[in-house]
């Protein structure tokens, strides 16, 4: 009796002799693409998330910051140290700084040697002078100040300033300070000193209001442990993700892009595998019948073919994993250059296991059903070619289950998987109906064209159902390719366009109402467009729905405490910025003027558990104003434009609040000297230069876009695999027909042109239906997932049809090129 070893030997020999056959090669290729895409994205995204956390860590000055109003208790510090991180203390507090006769309120920061733990401190010797990295902190007796304090105190290099009881010599001007943050709330001017001088100032006596910080850095595991340390209520933990929401939003969105790219690649690969396996299964029938004739039992045949699949699977997974790992390295390199961090080596075990799992699902879900079907072939087929096994339910169910499992593996949730599955089925049906209508419309044309085209169109019309099936398969593949192009070009471009090159890169704060006109004149005189201006008042939230708010009532909600303890900014306008979107209630427009209404950012509304119509009282320097919540807004903080948690209609505050103004404008880098004139003419105005931050966000976006485009290469490869599989599937039939036609006297040119005509028509049909579907899906994705405006693209239809015809014709011609030269008798003898 034939043993396992014999089945293995048969499988190995069969594979050695038959791997060059089109189906198995494409099947293996599809596996490589699927596994490659899956492992590249998992490996890469793990590293990227880490890298971006590190980069945002640079802006925070640490990987984690612990913050408290009192010195952090020793046991808490011990618990933090026990997690294996490196820790550096810092203290900030507000104090009056004196220089000669001039005084200014400044935020003093005392730091220890080693600051910052992440990112770079950069200083200069004169305002807007060339920046350098000092590589140290101020020495004892030295102080470094930011531009604003420099302006306010009218300093020059070497001037002495006094903080409390201690005198400091100003030796540098701070250009960039990690941990300074970016926001409109924490903008007191900075005085940076050495912690060794802190005691001598005598400013931190009992009752002093200070922030005690512990800056922390370490490897991922240590940081994870430090993030899990249980903290007393007065200690707040800050992570980079919280520090830079605009970056994290970009990162999350990039992950959406990557998942779509990977999903498309996997589904296409699955389709290619199913197609190849189906064609392979058809070819296996003769072999199965013969083997059964020669005495092989079904079990033996099944074992042999399954072993073949496993061998292909093993090779495909190994090659796919290598490709995925290589791709991850390329992606990592792309990011490392711009982020100037070494990406951590990704953990391999998880992604590899998942890749193996994917292979098993793809092979046994998509390929095995066809093999099972082939194994059921009756041996009588050796005499009766049309003897076939009845279609069975099990393989169909297996395929559906496999699609669902693949989607679940990719999407991570059943509902999402079910929606996509339904979407694919719906698209297939729509493509099928469109294709059928088009085929019918084409039929009368064949009488009006030449011989070659009559042959080509005749084939399309004659094989109507096969044409429809092929159009659906080709259409799905072309659809994916078109989607790739759309997502890449349109959606990514729209995303990038959210931060156009001329986006405002300078903010001016503290502008007094009386300075508005001179400010406009200043810009006009220098040929710059008038800057946009936002009024701003600072008020404290005192009552909610008529009840007094007290921070101690919210011991577990640090954000709420922060809101109660600090003045918050409120602006007013009758126009809604386009990076704002009303999610509840209505915008007041001009009709709101003078009414005490409030528009609240949705996360704040959620924190305060607000409902429309609730009242909130804000105290503006002793004058309380009661507002009614009129609408909630979603704000795109990623736009890096001035935005406010709270907005009111114009004319409500009147004299109640001493209004300041905020402005933003774009300043080309070659005109930065203008800032010096600006602070000379408006000494109280603070310039906030976010060019560096924007550059950082933009470069990360660019790299992410590059990474997404790179991952889409897998999708492209998978799409082409499906196209190849579809064309390869009908190759034999076309070769036979071409041979017959040539035997009947048709010239090779006529046959070739006929085939090209047929492929061109098929491609045209598939491309047209795919373009229509791609347009619809892109619109859905843009509106629902990425929230980017998206319009109709008529050019895409033409491009889809043209590209479809070109690609399918080219692949078809490549696939048949060799056989068209073969003598007809060889073709007809069936031995090609």
């Amino acid at each position: 009796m034939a043993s396992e070893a014999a089945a293995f030997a048969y499988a190995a020999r069969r594979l050695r002799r038959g791997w060059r056959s089109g189906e198995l090669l494409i099947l293996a290729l599809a596996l490589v693409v699927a596994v490659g895409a899956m492992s590249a994205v998992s490996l890469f995204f793990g590293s990227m998330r880490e890298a971006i956390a590190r980069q945002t860590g640079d802006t925070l000055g640490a990987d984690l910051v612990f913050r408290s109003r009192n010195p952090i208790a020793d046991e808490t510090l011990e618990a933090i140290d026990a997690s294996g991180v490196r820790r550096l203390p810092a203290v900030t507090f507000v104090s009056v700084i004196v220089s000669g006769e001039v005084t200014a309120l400044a935020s003093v920061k005392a730091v220890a040697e080693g600051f910052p733990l992440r990112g770079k401190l950069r200083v200069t010797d004169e305002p807007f002078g060339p920046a350098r990295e000092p590589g140290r902190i101020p020495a004892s007796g030295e102080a470094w100040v930011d531009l604003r304090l420099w302006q306010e105190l009218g300093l020059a290099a070497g001037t002495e300033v006094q903080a409390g009881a201690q005198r400091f010599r100003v030796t540098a001007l701070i250009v960039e300070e990690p941990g300074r943050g970016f926001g409109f709330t924490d903008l007191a001017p900075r005085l940076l000193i050495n912690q060794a001088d802190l005691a001598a100032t005598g400013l931190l006596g009992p009752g002093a209001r200070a922030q005690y910080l512990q800056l922390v850095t370490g490897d991922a595991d240590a940081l994870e442990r430090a993030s899990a340390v249980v903290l007393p209520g007065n200690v707040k933990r800050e992570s980079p993700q919280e520090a830079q929401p605009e970056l994290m939003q970009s990162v999350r969105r990039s992950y959406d892009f990557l998942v779509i790219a990977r999903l498309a690649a996997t589904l296409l690969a699955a389709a290619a595998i199913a197609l190849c396996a189906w064609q392979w299964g058809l070819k296996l029938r003769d072999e199965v019948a013969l083997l059964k004739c020669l005495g092989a039992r079904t079990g033996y045949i099944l074992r042999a073919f399954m072993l073949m699949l496993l061998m292909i699977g093993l090779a495909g997974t190994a090659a796919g994993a290598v490709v995925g790992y290589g791709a991850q390295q390329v992606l990592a390199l792309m990011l490392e250059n711009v982020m100037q961090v070494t990406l951590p080596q990704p953990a391999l075990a998880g992604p590899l296991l998942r890749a193996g799992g994917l292979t098993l699902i793809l092979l046994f879900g998509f390929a095995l059903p066809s093999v099972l079907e082939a194994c059921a072939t009756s041996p009588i087929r050796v005499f009766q070619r049309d003897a076939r096994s009845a279609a069975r339910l099990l393989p169909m169910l297996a395929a559906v289950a496999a699609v669902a499992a693949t989607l679940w593996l990719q999407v991570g949730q059943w509902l999402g998987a079910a929606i996509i599955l339904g979407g694919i089925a719906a698209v297939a049906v729509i493509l099928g109906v469109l294709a059928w209508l088009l085929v019918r419309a084409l039929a009368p044309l064949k009488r009006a064209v030449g011989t070659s085209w009559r042959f080509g169109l005749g084939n399309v019309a004659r094989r109507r159902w096969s044409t429809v099936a092929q159009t659906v398969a080709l259409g799905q593949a072309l659809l994916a390719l078109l989607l790739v192009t759309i997502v890449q070009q349109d959606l990514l471009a729209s995303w990038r366009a959210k931060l156009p090159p001329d986006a405002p890169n300078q903010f001016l704060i503290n502008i007094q109402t009386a300075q508005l006109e001179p400010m406009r004149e200043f810009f006009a005189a220098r040929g710059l467009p008038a800057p946009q201006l936002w009024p701003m008042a600072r008020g404290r939230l005192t009552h909610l729905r008529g009840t007094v708010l007290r921070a101690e009532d919210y011991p577990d909600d640090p954000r709420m405490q922060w809101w109660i303890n600090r003045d918050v900014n409120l602006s007013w306008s009758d126009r809604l910025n386009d990076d704002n979107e009303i999610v509840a209630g209505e915008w007041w427009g001009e009709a709101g003027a003078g009414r005490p209404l409030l528009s609240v950012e949705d996360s704040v509304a959620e924190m305060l558990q607000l409902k429309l119509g609730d009242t909130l009282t804000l105290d503006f320097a002793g004058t309380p104003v009661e507002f009614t919540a009129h609408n909630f807004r979603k704000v795109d903080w990623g736009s890096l434009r001035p935005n406010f948690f709270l907005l009111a209609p114009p004319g409500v505050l009147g004299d109640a609040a001493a209004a300041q103004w905020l402005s933003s404008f774009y300043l080309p880098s070659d005109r930065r000297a203008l800032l010096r004139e600006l602070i000379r003419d408006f000494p109280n105005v603070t310039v906030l230069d976010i060019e560096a931050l924007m550059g950082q966000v933009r470069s990360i976006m660019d790299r992410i876009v590059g990474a997404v485009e790179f991952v889409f290469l897998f999708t492209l490869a998978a799409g082409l695999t499906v196209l190849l599989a579809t064309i390869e599937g009908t190759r034999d039939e076309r070769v036979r027909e071409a041979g017959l036609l040539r035997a009947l006297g048709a010239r090779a040119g006529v046959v070739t042109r006929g085939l090209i005509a047929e492929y061109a028509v098929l491609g045209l049909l598939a491309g047209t239906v795919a373009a229509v579907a791609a347009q619809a899906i892109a619109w859905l994705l843009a509106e629902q997932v990425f929230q980017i405006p998206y319009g109709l693209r008529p050019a895409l239809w033409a491009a889809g049809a043209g590209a479809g015809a070109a690609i399918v014709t080219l692949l078809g011609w490549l696939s048949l090129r060799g056989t068209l030269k073969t003598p007809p008798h060889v073709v007809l003898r069936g031995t090609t």
Partner: protein
Amino acid sequence: MTAAVIAKDVRKEINSLDGAGAPSLKILRGVNLEVAPGATVAIVGASGSGKTTLLSLLAGLDSPTAGEIHLAGTRIDTLAEDDRAGARAGTVGFVFQSFQLLSGFTALENVMLPAELAGLDDARGRARDALARVGLAERLNHYPHQLSGGEQQRVAIARAFAGGPKILFADEPTGNLDTATGARIIDLLFELNAQHGAGGATLVLVTHDEQLARRCNRVLVLKDGVLNG
């Protein structure tokens, strides 16, 4: 001695494709046959008379609508398809009109198959010998498409004998060959059969070829679904 092949009142009907209502097509209407071990039998008849159907039933490739079939002492009409395959392994050899070689395998690998499936030792050695006996010792590693029609049929004959079968079924073995090649193939078939084991294998062949039919001990004519000797 047990007969090599026994058929008792074998009937085969096929349901009409039109489905319900239409009468079924009666291909075999009660065939009776007994073939002694080592005998050579030719089944002849007009095209469409059911010769190939009878051959496939006798070899257990299909099951009859009614009747009994015994193959080398085993009743096979009651067996499932898989068990019939098991009964064929190492017992039955085939020669087909269209050669039925696996295109991806070399001549040697094609000939090795039956011995491997029957779990016999030294399948490679047996295959090499068999190919040498059909005069293809020099073409072991050629693929079917590199061989002529006559050579392909010789490979098929080598394959038929390599597994050491007791019974050999041949379906129009010369049908795809020109007269001269066909004659050489017939010679080869009978020559090998004569050399094969004690008294040779039982040979049951279906043919149109009168020359071939005359070489057999018995010639049976299939007409109107009934076999006449």
